[in-house]
């Protein structure tokens, strides 16, 4: 009895392993990998991209595919962890992915890119904003449909020093890859600009139960505004604590904060806060159509980076059609020369991989919604 149970378990395990290994068979479809966090605490940033990929692929397949070939999606979870992202990358490569949508977090994307590069696979991210991804030249196979962090930091700093005319700025971050990177650029631009001084540069511990000490420190520093690099949970805690400690200075942040959840959680305290984010596309007919498709398919509003992912899918599929293959060099040439109409605007790509025609604008919370400042 016992032996049989063990045997069964072994047989099952072996069968499982074999079935996994033979799935990598060649076929005449074009395989598009989708990598991102689909579980864990960052899942809400990764799942909208999967939806975008599904919608675009469905649409193209119904219209007869690309050059007669149908598209197929390979969706893999990276949990935004570098070590898992490399496993996922090898899995996608061995399953025969020809282009990849993804890398949601910059860190995990950086870890996975060399593997895709060695296999000659084009990767396009809707959300990885770390400047080094394109500017270092280390990742020739990488493209993105979102502007890098330094562009955003520059915009926020110019807004604080020129438009609002502040002289003393506190720069706070959440010690994370994204937040600290953004904060360091902000600090650099403030110092280079010479119009204002950085009176405080510090990180807060994400998930902390109480931020009153750092708020008291901001108060003591005499800052006229706080520039915060990080995500909305910490931002709403800090801004609420500022109100509680009767500290009345403005709050400027990044697109990790430009999320409706920020307003939901911080409530009235969020009123008047500034945050930069991707340009408002609400008048772009393609964007309206893309959101409408999501509503009819999934019966819900699309989430973070949905439009960027949708645009990336359009840009990649268009390049495959124009290049006639999924060869990396041919795709790169097509991406650089062809202008594509997407929900984030009419875009093409520069030689480094950044999208031309995608930018940021500054928003302010007014009556519970982010309103674009012109």
């Amino acid at each position, binding site marked *: 009895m016992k032996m049989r149970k063990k045997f069964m378990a072994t047989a099952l395990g072996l069968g499982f392993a074999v079935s996994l290994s033979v799935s990598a068979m060649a076929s005449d479809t074009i395989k598009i990998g989708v990598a991102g966090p689909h579980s864990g*605490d960052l*899942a*809400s940033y990764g799942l909208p991209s999967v939806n975008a990929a599904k919608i675009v692929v469905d649409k193209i397949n119904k219209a007869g595919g690309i050059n007669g070939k149908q598209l197929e999606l390979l969706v893999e979870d990276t949990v935004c962890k570098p070590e898992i992202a490399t496993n996922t990358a090898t899995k996608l490569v061995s399953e025969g992915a020809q282009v990849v949508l993804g890398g949601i977090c910059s860190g995990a994307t950086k870890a996975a890119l060399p593997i895709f590069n060695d296999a000659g696979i084009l990767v396009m991210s809707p959300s990885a904003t770390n400047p080094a991804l394109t500017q270092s030249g280390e990742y020739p196979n990488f493209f993105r449909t979102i502007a890098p962090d330094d562009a955003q930091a520059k915009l926020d700093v110019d807004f604080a020093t020129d438009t609002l005319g502040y002289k003393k700025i506190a720069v706070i971050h959440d*010690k994370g890859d994204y937040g600290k990177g953004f904060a360091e650029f902000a600090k650099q631009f403030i110092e280079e600009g010479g119009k204002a001084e950085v009176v405080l540069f*510090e*990180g*807060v*511990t994400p*998930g*902390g*139960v*109480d931020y*009153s*000490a*750092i708020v*008291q*420190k901001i*108060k*003591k520093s005499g800052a006229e505004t706080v520039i915060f690099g990080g995500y*909305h*949970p910490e931002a*709403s*805690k800090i801004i*609420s604590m500022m109100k*509680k*400690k*009767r*500290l009345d200075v403005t709050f400027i942040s990044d697109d990790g904060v430009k999320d409706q*959840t920020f307003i*939901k*959680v*911080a*409530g009235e305290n969020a009123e008047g806060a500034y945050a930069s984010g991707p340009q408002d596309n609400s008048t772009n007919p393609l964007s309206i159509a893309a959101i409408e498709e999501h509503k009819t398919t999934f019966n819900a509003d699309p989430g973070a980076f949905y439009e960027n992912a949708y645009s990336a899918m359009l840009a990649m599929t268009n390049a495959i059609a124009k290049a006639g293959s999924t060869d990396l060099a041919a795709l790169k040439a097509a991406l650089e020369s062809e202008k594509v109409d997407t929900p984030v605007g009419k875009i093409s790509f520069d030689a480094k991989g950044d999208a031309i025609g995608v930018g940021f604008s500054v928003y302010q919370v007014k009556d519970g919604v982010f309103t674009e400042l012109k």
Partner: protein
Amino acid sequence: MLMDFDYFRELFFSGLTRGAIYALIALGYTMVYGIIGLINFAHGEIYMIGAFTAFIAATIFSILGFPALAIIILAGVCAVIWSASYGYTIEKIAYKPLRHAPRLSPLISAIGMSIFLQNYVLLAQTSDFLPFPALIPDFDFMEPYAHIVGSTDVVILATTTVIMIILTFIIKYTKVGKAMRATAQDRTMATLVGINVNRIISATFIIGSSLAAVGGLLIASHIGQINFYIGFIAGIKAFTAAVLGGIGSIPGAVLGSVILGLTESFATGYVSSDYEDVFAFSLLVLILIFKPSGILGKADNQKV
């Protein structure tokens, strides 16, 4: 100079509040550890579930139009009932069968339970951060001091103090408390003198979890948001505080928490918040090197 004293006072109170927050969670840790010698990693998750239950209850009662005071009390009662039930059930499933197992096995079981509960709430509720309503209103008489210490802070400080006094009383003078101390000292001996050890351990988990629920309610309304992951970070800090004060000791848990809170606050204020946790853990290492059983812990002499 005056300005600097104000700053010192501000930091002192934010450290005190933070300490009181840690203490609410640390008390449960220290009780469970004292009685069965287990680092109950799932305790942070009980706190998180308490906060979620309070959130759900508070929202329902506010939709039904209850007055503010009733909402706080009812949400608190719900949180305590369910957290205590979770604590009781977890002990029965994950720890009781391991009573005679090797010492580290319950620890792994606790880590597994902690992972399970986090993902359970993630799947059954949401991965997003939820806005937790400010259940405690701003008192008018506190307004002149609001920039130093807020109304919520005062409520937290008072609650922690009251809980500590009640708990000390229970453990020192009541029958259950005496049984608890006996069980903690020697489980076999306690059984011999007629103490139902299983019931006492269950009682410990129920009391510890109820405290975590009160903590969940107060802390969540202090920071204004909850999600499934809040228990883990707060739990580790609270455990550190409990060890700092001498694990197993009720006043020790509170003292350790306050010292930890003040250290972090002053480290942020006078040095840099980049390294506040480094200061906290270095303090822990230092104190344990010179006083290996924590500040108020009893040094146990080892015998052959």
